[in-house]
């Protein structure tokens, strides 16, 4: 009772999570696809990411089969605070007579969606012997650990027991879990061993398989290995740890420590009791048997154009342009397709190099499978003719075929060509300098691709391998932009200060101007003081208009120029300054009478007319 209440609370709290979860998915499996008459088999329909009400089919009608609904179970898992749930509907099937039965798709409404199960096939034999005879064509693997009571297994499938050095061997790593367990966490498996290189494992492909009458979710990881040296090697074993979710045991039963290899967690009454319990997590380890591999050396007698390719290949070649001058480059595109060790494949060679310059080839590989053991490698060879020639000689590409156990040389068609011009060209790339024409390297078995020539100039002398940013030159160079930035900052600060000074000066001048103007308008001043203040006012106004002028240096001409006065105004300005000077320097007018009101108004008008 308590469990059901707990489940209800959890279900209610997780409703919001479900609402924004993945769309519902449906799967349907038979616990066995091969049975005998009278033996029952379970049909399980599982709906994942269920957020709303579900209406399972109450009756499935297939003539010859008795199908009864036996109940449902709900599973909830929480990972990273995301809750997901699935509902499992169980049906018991009792075959009445032998034959091959198709269980038609079942439509199930999940909220607004209608989901359909796949068609399932059930083979029913008359007797246990007959059933064994029509069993799975899957050969039992020697290193499978999936026994009757096992929850998981690991297999290492290597199609060959012997191989040649450099040969690419596809390998499949299979990790299987009983379909009623849920894999919570599993890292990609690692393939260990020595004497060979392993290509990176691809994404695991998930399949549902029926093995020995039990349903397993099997993860297939494809890769390829390549033997690096001769000898007997051991591939694997593959050891894998995984966290799986299995149903929690009944609380009433006395519990023992869980051992996934000796106990069947599905024997728990949970499976017959809907809403019987939640899941619990266990870490399990699976280990495959190792596989031995004998690696043989490539046989002797390799053709001169053999460079290490092992596999089965075909070649096409095309040269362009077809009409050239002597010395012009011609690009030969050679596409080698097939299956083998493309990473060890060199470009095909010209069968006759006389009269040609060769440049280092480039290549591009386009793989056709997940692990890169089949595909097309395209080489671009650039050659240029030294003399008049009528065709590009056939390319030759050699490889070792491990199936036929012999070397194969593929020739391309000769490619017709028109070479124009008279003078023979000088060699562009000296592939045959004295160094290059030296005897071949000791131990070289096949005709090796020759290296390019020696360079007799030392070139630019460098005294450090340190990265550029770790050298002092780089950081010293930063001083220049740093100095530049500091200078720029100083210039900017000075500009700001200068503009502040100018503003302050202008404010002072304006203040003085306003005070003088008020004084001239209001006060009855002595002529000397009046003209002195009037001329000072003109100076201030001039300095305010043209900021680069000091007020004390302003005279009548300067004021006339700055304010662009007409002749009459200029004359009055001159008289104003002359009078002011006269009073200032002659001593006349000191305390003598007041200035006439007409003269005062005239002077004031002149000053106020200045903008």
């Amino acid at each position, binding site marked *: 009772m308590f469990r059901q209440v707990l489940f209800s609370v959890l279900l209610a709290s997780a409703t919001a999570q479900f609402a924004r979860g993945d769309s519902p998915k449906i799967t349907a499996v038979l616990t066995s696809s091969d049975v005998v008459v009278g033996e029952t088999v379970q049909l399980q329909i599982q709906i994942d990411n269920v957020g709303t009400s579900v209406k399972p089919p109450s009756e499935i009608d297939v003539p010859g089969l008795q199908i009864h609904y036996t109940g449902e179970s709900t599973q909830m898992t929480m990972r990273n605070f995301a809750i997901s749930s699935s509902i499992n509907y169980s049906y018991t099937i009792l075959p009445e007579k032998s034959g091959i039965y198709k269980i038609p798709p079942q439509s199930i409404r999940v909220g607004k969606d209608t989901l359909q199960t796949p068609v399932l096939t059930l083979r029913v034999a008359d007797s246990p012997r007959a059933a064994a005879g029509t069993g799975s064509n899957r050969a039992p693997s020697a290193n499978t650990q999936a026994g009757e009571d096992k929850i998981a297994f690991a297999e290492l499938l290597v199609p060959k027991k012997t191989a040649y050095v450099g040969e690419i061997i596809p390998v499949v790593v299979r990790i299987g879990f009983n379909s009623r367990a849920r894999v919570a966490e599993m890292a990609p498996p690692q393939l260990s061993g020595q004497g060979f290189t392993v290509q990176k494992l691809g994404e695991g492909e998930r399949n549902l398989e029926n093995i020995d009458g039990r349903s397993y979710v099997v993860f297939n990881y494809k890769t390829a290995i390549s033997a690096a040296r001769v000898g007997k090697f051991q591939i694997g074993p593959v050891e894998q740890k995984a966290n799986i979710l299995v149903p929690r045991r009944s609380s009433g039963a006395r519990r023992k420590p869980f051992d996934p290899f000796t106990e069947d967690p599905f024997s728990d009454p949970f499976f017959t009791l809907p809403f019987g319990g939640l899941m619990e997590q266990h870490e399990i380890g699976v280990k495959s048997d190792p596989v031995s591999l004998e690696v043989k050396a490539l046989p002797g007698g390799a053709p001169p154009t053999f460079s290490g390719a092992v596999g089965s290949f075909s070649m096409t070649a095309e040269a362009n342009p077809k009409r050239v001058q002597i010395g012009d480059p011609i690009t030969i595109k050679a596409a080698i397709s097939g299956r083998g060790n493309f990473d060890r494949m060199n470009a095909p060679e010209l069968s006759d190099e006389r009269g040609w310059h060769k440049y280092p080839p480039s290549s591009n590989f386009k793989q056709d499978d997940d692990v890169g053991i089949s595909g097309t490698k395209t080489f671009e060879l650039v050659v240029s003719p030294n003399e008049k020639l009528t065709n590009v000689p056939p390319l030759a590409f050699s490889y070792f075929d491990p199936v036929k156990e012999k070397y194969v040389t593929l020739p391309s068609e000769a490619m017709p060509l028109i070479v124009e011009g008279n003078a023979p060209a000088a060699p562009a790339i000296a592939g045959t300098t004295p160094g290059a024409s030296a005897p071949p390297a000791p131990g070289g078995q096949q005709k090796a691709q020759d290296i390019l020539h*020696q*360079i007799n100039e030392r070139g630019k*002398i460098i005294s450090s391998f340190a990265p550029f940013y770790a050298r002092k030159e780089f950081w010293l160079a930063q001083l220049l932009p740093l100095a530049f930035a500091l200078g720029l900052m100083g210039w900017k600060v000075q500009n700001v200060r200068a503009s502040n000074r100018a503003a302050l000066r202008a404010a002072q001048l304006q203040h003085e101007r306003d005070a003088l103007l008020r004084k001239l308008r209001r006060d009855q001043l002595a002529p000397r003081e009046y003209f002195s203040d009037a001329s000072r006012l003109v100076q201030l106004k001039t300095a305010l208009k043209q900021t680069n002028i000091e007020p004390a240096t302003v005279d009548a001409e300067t004021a006339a120029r700055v304010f662009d006065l007409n002749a009459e105004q200029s004359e009055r300005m001159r008289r104003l300054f002359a009078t002011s000077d006269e009073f200032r320097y002659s001593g006349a007018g000191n305390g003598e009478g007041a200035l006439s009101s007409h003269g005062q108004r005239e002077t004031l008008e002149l000053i106020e007319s200045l903008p």
Partner: protein
Amino acid sequence: MKLSALFQILVLLLFALPGAKGASNDGPSSPRDESVRPADRSDDDLFAKANTEFAAGDFKAAIADYQAVVGSGDWSANLFYDLGNAYFRHGDFGRAILNYDRALRLDQHHPEADANLRIAHDQAHSLELAPSTLDRYLNFGTAGFFAIVAAIFFWLAIIFLILRPGRVLWAIVGMFLAAICGFAAYRLENGTHGQGLAIVTAENAEARVATVDSARSVLALPAGSEVVILQERGDWNYAALPNDQRGWVSASAVEKVQL
């Protein structure tokens, strides 16, 4: 002041000093650049002697003389390339690959070293490290290139901030780009083909799970194979291997590309 003029000045300033000192080895400089620093006369003579010995087929003597020039510390891409050729002719593909790699480290655009390196790898059947996805994307530039671009973005951001203090967003964008370029430079220098890259020079070397010769082997490493040294401990180096695993490799079996 126009921003474009500022940018030009900054680029000139950044390139002026290293360029004048000939310190950058990341630019597309010709391997046969004639602007050679006045070198020690004896090194030049030794280099010429080694070339003559190579041409005469005396590869052992050529190797000894090239090594003597290497020992002087005045290196060049051509010197390592020629030394690689001498080792190749001598049948030591591991050290040939090592020296071609060194030539390419000093001059990334050394076509002869690139071509011969491929040939040497093919001959040696050596294992090569697959660059990571990020390294492949960053491969269009060198660490030096990204360092310079990062510095340019950084200083442009600073100068922009000085000139236009109100436009902080542009300065942040500049700093962000500088940080990305700085990360790219760091990543290239510390990635698969960065400063930890080492070449297996010993025959029949093996990477092991522990630092003893009797420990289980992780991977057999043909001469010329690439590994990345992650940690050095006495006579053993912990290294990333070409099959995406890690193991201990005898220190005497590998040599770092970067001297």
